[in-house]
């Protein structure tokens, strides 16, 4: 999987590419408008992560140029501007997703996987983790071939974990992923805990293993023991 990161802030680009590298992606970095614009024209990427405010130009122009040439290209905008207009404009131009800085790397990773998954056809759509199988197209989850019924939040939580397996996922990033900004200022730990308890119970009821480990104070980790 090849990903292009167009981001002028070098340290941030480093962190992102390191995290994505650990996830098995090949992550190229372009630090400016011209190089970014050039790269997307020349090479093919599974996904482009695009910052809007770049020295030398507006990231939306790169998006525009890219979509003219390769309408099918996957793009996630990562912007420091929490501006609805930019978001609408970006999505109108054909971006797949929009993420506002600062974001959790685990969130970026989940979004990236989801975008790539949606674009890959033919069988590759299913997410498999040992005995757990999720088919996102029809939102069906099976454990040892037996289907389990999850609530919307439990399903989202499972997908989030599966996108970030073997990694510590912080409770803040889970809260933001499940509820967005609405839960700001609310101690959401109780809610996360109850969803995790239910999810764990439902998986284990069908003979699945308990993969959800608690990382004290920090969050959770979905991993083989």
């Amino acid at each position, binding site marked *: 999987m090849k990903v292009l990161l167009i981001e002028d802030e070098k340290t*941030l680009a480093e962190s992102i590419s390191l995290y994505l590298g650990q996830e098995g992606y090949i992550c190229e970095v372009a630090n400016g408008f011209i190089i970014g614009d050039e790269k997307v024209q020349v090479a093919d990427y599974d996904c482009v992560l695009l910052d809007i405010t770049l020295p030398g130009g507006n990231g939306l122009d790169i998006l525009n140029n890219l979509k003219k040439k390769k309408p099918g290209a996957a793009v996630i905008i990562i912007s*420091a501007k929490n501006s609805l207009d930019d978001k609408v404009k970006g999505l109108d131009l054909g971006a797949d997703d929009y993420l506002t800085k*600062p974001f*959790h790397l685990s969130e970026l990773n989940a979004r990236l996987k989801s975008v790539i998954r949606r674009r890959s056809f033919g069988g590759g759509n299913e997410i498999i983790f040992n005995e757990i199988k999720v088919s996102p197209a029809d939102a069906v989850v099976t454990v040892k071939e037996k289907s389990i019924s999850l609530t919307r939040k439990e399903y989202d939580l499972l997908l989030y974990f599966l996108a970030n397996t073997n990694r510590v996922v912080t409770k803040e990033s889970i809260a933001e992923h499940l509820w967005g900004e609405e839960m700001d*200022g609310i101690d959401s730990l109780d809610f996360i805990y109850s969803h995790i308890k239910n999810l764990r119970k439902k998986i284990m009821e069908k003979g699945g293993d308990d993969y959800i480990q608690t990382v004290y104070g*920090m969050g959770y980790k979905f991993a083989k023991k």
Partner: protein
Amino acid sequence: MKLLTRTNIFFVGLTLIVFTLGGTVFYKTFRNITREDATERLQDEKTKILTYVSSHQSLPQNTISLGDTVAFYQVVAPATEKTGRTKFLNPSENEYEPYQTLEFNVSLKGVNYRAVIFKPLIEADDLQHAIFQAIAIVSLILVIVMVLANFAISRFVWKPFHRTLEKIKEFDLAKEGSVSFSKTSIKEFSEMNAVLETMTNKIAADYKNLKQFTENASHELQTPLSIIQSKLELMIQAENLSADQMEEVRVVYEATGRLSKLNQALLLLAKIENRQFVETKQVALNEIVESKLNAFEELIKHKNLSVERNIEPVTLQLHQTLADILLSNLIGNSIKHNIEGGRISIKLNKESLVISNSGGQISMLPHELFHRFRKASDASDSLGLGLAIVKEICDAYGFDIQYMYANMVHTITISF
């Protein structure tokens, strides 16, 4: 007190003082003049009497003229000449009247006589009365003229001043960039206008810079915050951290998250203040209310809250994001600051939005609730900016917002 009233009082007071002093001086002078005159005429009469005595060799039998009275009486030895004043009862008016007197010696055929001439003077009472009357009339006329003149002057001369005052009263820093005053030919006022114009322009420019600065600063903070957060996330993944180190990373991570939220809230506030949410459209508030209640459903269930809805379809010309934030903050608050098993009531109609929730008393004054960084308790997780943002959004659209607490119920009313 109006300037005009004060000037008038001052003028009237001054007039009274001047005329009292003037009257006294006038009275004294007039009295002295009459006395001197009387003394001179008494001397005349003395000369006439002495002439009469020496030519007729007898005392005059009747008063010579002028209604003055002359009396002679015999004395042993001549005394010096003497002037004086005395009073006699006037039987017809039954009051004492003043007389100027002159006593002198007359010698006739070796006999010494003392002659006394009594000359009636103007009564002091009459004199004072006349002078007082004259002065009172003059001062009254003067005061009336002055007051009228002041009114007229104030009408015309102070007109530019009042125009400037009106302009300043209407001036709103948040709305207008600068203010300009109408021209005036009066030097003081045109100077004042110039000073005010420079001052307001400077204030407006500073204000604009400050707002811009807040926004830029918040915006610039986002990038380093992103870096810190991403580095911490990478650190968390490290397998070789000790429990103590992990705990420290956790504390830093949480603080960073908080800082980042705070920064976003401040940035939002600055953007609303700078009127950057200009693109408005017809927004169905009732739909947003429903969707927010949906989003908060878990929380509402968790706290066992009962929600009373009285929602009519209402469409307003707003910015989508701001409408969203407004309702999210208000409904979120009504849940967060509620009690276990409490109630929420949401009333929405064309005139207003009323959201009330049960909850304990807060230690703040109602108007302080909308100030930045005001929190019900220091321990709470909230940033203390939610209601400040709500207030700012209401201000941006000219909505009136009121807070009330009664019978364990907090109510926020927004009038459109």
